[in-house]
């Protein structure tokens, strides 16, 4: 009985103290999150162009269809997962949109197509594709650009109150990986299916896995 009244008093004291300190609060608006991630993507793009130079083949019609489709899909995945990150900053229960999952499934077709195409063309092509001399540069540069997008996403999530921490980690990784690769991708002149299908998708997978494990401790509240 005594314990119950002590608890009631301590809660009443806590409520009184919090009410006394109450000040107007700035509402967390999803549009601000989208703008923040968009700004980070632009920054990553400008940085990539400054370091690697823009590939003018993109505008002169030299880019292959594979290149355009892959980067178009990266944009779709980036938008869907960035929207997922933005909305996950606001607590909610119930059904969640599964657009990121479907868009990732669509993107997954590209590396599968690349591998099938290399296998059908003979073992030598597969070996060449796996030992692509531009692989390391494309993967690492995309991941560096992804760090900028991930930073903005984490900043946003820390301002909010994500309640599905693991999901937010995956979404952050996928958004950062796809938008980072897109930011770097426009500087890459290698536009074969084997190259973009493997080495412009690998950073998304790597970033997603890193996001799953590295982001949760940073956004837990």
């Amino acid at each position, binding site marked *: 009985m005594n314990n119950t009244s002590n608890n*009631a008093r301590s809660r009443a004291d806590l409520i009184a103290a919090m009410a006394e300190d109450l000040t*107007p609060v700035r509402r967390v608006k999803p549009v601000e999150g989208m703008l923040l991630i968009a700004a980070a993507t632009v920054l990553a793009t400008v940085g990539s162009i400054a370091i690697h130079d823009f590939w003018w083949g993109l505008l002169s019609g030299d880019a292959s269809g594979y290149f355009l489709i892959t980067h178009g899909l990266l944009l779709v995945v980036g938008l869907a997962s960035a929207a997922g990150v933005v909305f996950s900053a606001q607590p909610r229960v119930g059904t969640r949109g599964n657009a990121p999952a479907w868009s990732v499934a669509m993107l997954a077709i590209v590396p599968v197509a690349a591998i099938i195409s290399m296998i059908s063309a003979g073992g030598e092509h597969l070996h060449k594709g796996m030992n692509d001399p531009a692989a390391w540069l494309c993967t690492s540069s995309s991941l560096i650009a992804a760090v900028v997008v991930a930073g903005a996403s984490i900043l946003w999530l820390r301002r909010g*109150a994500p309640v599905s921490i693991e999901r937010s980690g995956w979404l952050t990784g996928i958004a950062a990986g796809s938008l980072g690769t897109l930011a770097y991708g426009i500087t890459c002149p290698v536009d074969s299916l084997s190259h973009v299908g493997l080495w412009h998708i690998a950073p998304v997978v790597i970033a997603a896995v890193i996001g799953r494990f590295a982001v949760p401790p940073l956004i837990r509240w």
Partner: protein
Amino acid sequence: MVADEPTFARLMVSTQDGDKAAGNVLLTEVGVWLERYFLRRVPPHQIDDLVQEVLISFYTKRGTWDPSRPFLPWLAAIARYRWVDHLRKVYKHDSQELMEDDAVEDSEEEVVLARVSLDRLFGQLPEKQAEVIEMVKIGGLSVREAAEKTGQSESLVKVNIHRGLKKMASLVEKAD
């Protein structure tokens, strides 16, 4: 009587705008709502601590509620997040205890897991895991006694409890 959704939403708008009186009423009403929410989820003597934790989270994160969306699902999501966090701490505590000592003592945290819709959760665990968790964590048997009763080795009992509790925490976390 607990306030209804429109009352909560109206008070919350005023609270977000810095109205101290509305804030006081809202926090009190939220406290009552949370007490009911946790009633069947944690042992009675832990409810107040958890309610106060959620009230602090609610206060700190009040800017994340969007007035165009319903209030109670937002509050329930925060309450659930804190509850899962609480379970995670219990799980960590239990794991450490298993690694440190064979003897199982009555700890108040264990009771939490014992009350979390156990039948439903046990139904999703392999039978051997559910069996030893029930014996050791609820029935109060020692690991050795559970090993003798089930025919499992002591280390297997520990592993099954460890894996089972981990799965239970993850099931609760994933459930909407």
